[in-house]
């Protein structure tokens, strides 16, 4: 790890003032490790706020390269990064943003074969994916390794967020069936939608790491951006879940 500023460093002053964080909480954040699975729209927002919060080690994984059509929402990447692997671009940007934390960019595809190594030393999985299949990989790893999985997804002006915690909540596959065939057609999205959802994921991740507040466990937050409706729906485990019903 790079030189980590003292927990009392002014960099984190405004959050160490908060009850529930304080110097001790800040020190816990500095010792934490998070995998951000995807350096797209969601991952861009969550990564900045988790880096800003002083998470000691952020791993950020993405096998794609930066394309011009990414830049309406993927604020980790600049025009100068076009053509670069997103893992490299993201790690460089985050390291420049906060030199006091360790950032590891991973450029491998997230699969059932690669995820276990990616999760070595990781405390929480933060979803930055754009497909059901990759989320299924994260979900199975979350269940196998008993790691919390902070899900978000976006579409258009809309977003969803939930915290799936093995043994305490339903899992991703309890809710999402993946029945629709995968599509290679791009999905329209306004940049602020993943920005909003990714920011919420960063907040939920800090809450889970510090065991403070009331994280989005057993609830799915839905935001309809066009008519600006936000509400939570209550979740119960799915007895027919293919992933966790017998877990």
């Amino acid at each position, binding site marked *: 790890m790079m030189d980590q500023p003292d927990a009392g460093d002014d960099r984190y002053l405004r959050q160490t003032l908060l009850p529930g964080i304080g110097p001790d909480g800040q020190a816990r954040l500095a010792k934490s490790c998070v995998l951000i699975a*995807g350096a*797209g*729209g*969601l*991952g861009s927002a969550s990564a900045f706020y988790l880096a800003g919060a002083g998470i000691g080690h952020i791993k950020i994984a993405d096998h794609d390269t930066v394309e011009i059509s990414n830049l309406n929402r993927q604020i980790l990447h600049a025009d100068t990064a076009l053509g670069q692997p997103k893992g490299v671009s993201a790690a460089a940007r985050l390291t420049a943003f906060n030199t006091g934390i360790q950032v590891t960019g991973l450029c491998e595809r997230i699969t059932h074969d690669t995820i276990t190594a990616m999760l070595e030393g990781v405390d929480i999985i933060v*979803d*930055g*994916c*754009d*497909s*059901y299949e990759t*989320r299924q990989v994260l979900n199975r790893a979350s269940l196998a390794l008993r790691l919390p999985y902070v899900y*978000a*997804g*976006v*579409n258009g002006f*809309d*977003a*969803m967020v939930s915290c799936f915690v093995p043994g305490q909540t339903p899992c991703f596959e*309890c*809710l*999402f*069936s*993946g*029945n*629709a065939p995968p599509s290679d057609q791009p*999905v329209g*999205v306004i940049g602020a939608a*993943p920005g909003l959802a990714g920011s919420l994921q960063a907040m939920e991740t800090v809450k889970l790491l510090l065991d403070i507040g009331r994280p989005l466990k057993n609830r*799915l937050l*839905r935001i309809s951006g066009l*008519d600006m*409706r936000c*509400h*939570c*729906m*209550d*979740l*119960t485990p*799915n*007895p*027919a879940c293919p992933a966790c019903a017998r877990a």
Partner: protein
Amino acid sequence: MIIQLNGIKETVPDSLTISGLIEWAKEGDPDLMVEKNRQYIYPAEYDTCPVNENDVIEFINPNLGG
């Protein structure tokens, strides 16, 4: 009977289940998620879960973009 479906008051046939309501609304998304009175309803319950007067029901298309 009158229910609130996706934020809009709708008059729907009496004695519907969630399955019947999906059919009535001509919802075709195979990944459709259903919320009834703020509670997530699982597909295995669609055939037996009744729709009652004044229920608040949302048909939700999952958000899987990133």
